[in-house]
């Protein structure tokens, strides 16, 4: 509907004095066209291309005289980015800091990406950290988490959490995690579950204590996804390792975390967490039902199991749909 048509409609229903309608008309005619989103997208694309390209370029010139220049250039660029971001940093507050513009945010992001490029290069070329691989991943994790709080930047917080996850992975299973592709094995998956619990606790704490409450979403979404993915993958693994948690415990854990997510969603009106909670819980319950059906199957007439499964899925799906449709009544939302 064109703005003019809406104005006519509102004037007809006498919901708007004509003078105000005239002001709105004027605003519609003179309001500048915002390129905010487009510019942010281009800026982000440029930053990713630049840091990625530099990351490769540095190895192309490893045996030439020029590679010292490349290292120096990256270092300077990184320091420049951090400097620019620091100059335009809003004063520290535990609440969400007001922003003047988005350029300093992206400068900080580019600085962090260049830091990784540089650190990786120093490690591969000069073995700067020797064999202390834990330190290689812990350093960016600590730096990024600190910067995220100091600059109030959620993107850098997510990068710090990712680095923290790498650090846990490297500490639990040095090298083999990268050599064999068995990412989700026993101790590793248990560690992922532990880290996920820790991140979720951090998210809830930051919200409860009012310390960067707007970081809670990042902590909770990354932490709960890490935990639930690891637990579900272990649950569905046909050859669980000797150190894996028993399936009964995993199912209880998943259901408990899902209940916590739905409870959080109810408080904060966050439908993403609601969807995640219901989805993962449905997977876990279906797993239990299938295990139960298979265990009680009469192998003389095993067609019956399939019939039950074909009945179970549509009926349970209808149940979930009814839950979604009546969500406000069930959870007592507004």
């Amino acid at each position, binding site marked *: 509907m064109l703005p003019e048509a809406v104005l006519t409609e509102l004037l007809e229903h006498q919901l708007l004095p004509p003078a105000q309608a005239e002001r709105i008309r004027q605003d519609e005619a003179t309001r500048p066209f915002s390129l905010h989103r487009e510019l942010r997208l281009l800026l982000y694309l440029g930053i990713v291309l630049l840091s990625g*390209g530099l990351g490769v370029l540095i190895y192309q010139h490893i045996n030439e005289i020029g590679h010292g220049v490349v290292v120096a250039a990256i270092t300077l660029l990184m320091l420049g980015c951090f400097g620019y971001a620091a100059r335009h940093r809003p004063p520290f507050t535990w609440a969400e800091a007001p922003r003047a513009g988005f350029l300093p945010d992206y400068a900080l992001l580019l600085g962090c990406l260049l830091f990784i490029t540089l650190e990786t290069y120093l490690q591969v070329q000069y073995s700067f950290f020797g064999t202390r691989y834990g330190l290689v991943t812990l350093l960016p994790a600590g730096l990024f988490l600190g910067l995220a709080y100091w600059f109030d930047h959620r993107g850098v917080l997510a990068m710090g959490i990712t680095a923290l996850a790498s650090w846990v992975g490297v500490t639990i299973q040095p090298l083999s995690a990268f050599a064999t592709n068995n990412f989700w094995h026993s101790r590793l998956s248990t560690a992922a579950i532990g880290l996920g619990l820790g991140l979720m606790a951090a998210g809830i704490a930051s919200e409860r204590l009012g310390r960067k409450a707007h970081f809670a979403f990042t902590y909770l979404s990354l932490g709960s996804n890490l935990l639930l993915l690891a637990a579900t993958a272990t649950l569905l693994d046909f050859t669980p390792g000797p150190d894996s948690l028993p399936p009964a415990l995993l199912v209880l854990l998943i259901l408990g975390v899902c209940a916590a997510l739905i409870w959080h969603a109810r408080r904060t009106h966050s439908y993403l967490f609601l969807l995640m909670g219901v989805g993962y819980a449905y997977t876990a319950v279906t797993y239990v039902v299938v295990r139960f059906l298979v265990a009680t199957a009469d192998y003389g007439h095993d067609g019956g199991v399939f019939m039950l499964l074909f009945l179970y899925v549509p009926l349970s799906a209808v149940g979930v749909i009814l839950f979604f449709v009546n969500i406000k009544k069930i959870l007592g939302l507004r």
Partner: protein
Amino acid sequence: MNLYAYNPTWPRHEAIQAQARRWHKRGLLTPEQLGAIEAAFPLEFYRPHLFLRIGLFLFTTLGALFAAGFAGVLAQFHFLGTLLPVLLVGGVTLELVIAGKHLYHSGADNALLYLELLGLVVLIFDLTFAHLNEYGYADHLDPTPGTLRLALALLLTLAVLVLATLRYADRLVAAAAYLCALLLFANGVLMLPLGTLLLPFALSAASAGAHAWATRQLARPERLPYHRCLRVLRALTLGTAYLAVNYLVVREGNAELLSSGNWTGPAPQIPRAPLFYGLTAGIPVFYLVQGLRRPDRTWLWLGLLTAAFSVYTLRYYRSVLPPETAAVLAGVLLAGGAAWATRYLRHSRHGLTSTPDDAEDPQLNLESLIVAETAHAAPAPAETFQFGGGSSGGGGATGEY
């Protein structure tokens, strides 16, 4: 019976409320006025938050597919014996939930509609390609471009999709109907002598015509229920107008058509290549200029997307620079240009601004997740790790181990 499945006051009230909320955000309406408007034009349909819609869509699809499977078990997997009753039950269910529960593009009705149409299209293609053969028309089993039989199947599909668009005003179905019409048109052109030579220009011209039509329809108030579809079509037509004359699409498509799919090696050069070079390079620039001069977000975004595809086309055939140098240069140009434009447009000039527009719908706050997804945090410490292509290795945010 009314052709439009939903209550026509729903889109009207929705548009009025959305516009009023935008004005309220810009401080042009008082909260009391907004409340009065919302009371005068109430929303009496069910369309929940985006994530609930996703959940409803997924679970409806899952349930409907397994229910169809259950019907298949009962009918002992006889093809038509399963498909026909399932389609009948699905269609009736769709109509009943819209009428009874007032669902309005709520995820559940979208899922049922898509599955229903998918079943109908499968039925049409099965009837024209598999079952006609049983009655002695056995010449082609696979759809071949430029044949009457494909034209028949596409015509039936188009009829189904157009009727579904008119009744349900769904954006995806409208897009599918447009693409189907374009395929039908291409199939007709291919039946002409010199069809392959004409095809790119005919398709591009048809797309341009469709764009003009959709823009005109958008200006008509009585088309309000279809405005969502028409907006999608405006963007899609610009995309197909470009793709039809894109050098890569024309060259590969030409080889595909002439050799009927068993070409090996790179596609051969096409006649009048310089013309297609020019169009591939020129159209994105034209779109961007139009997008900034009008200003119009549809033109602008299509300009950005087509520019990206033109760069891909160039690099597909010619390696102008080594990839990493090209990435660094492009990164410097993009980031530098965007940063300059942001500062330049801080105070609005030429009717453009870089500050966020309060009258825009707020975006989902998923930015931090996207950053975690694309920006690889920790370096990989293994000695075996080789730095070849890509950037600094690593996976997504959650499966980082």
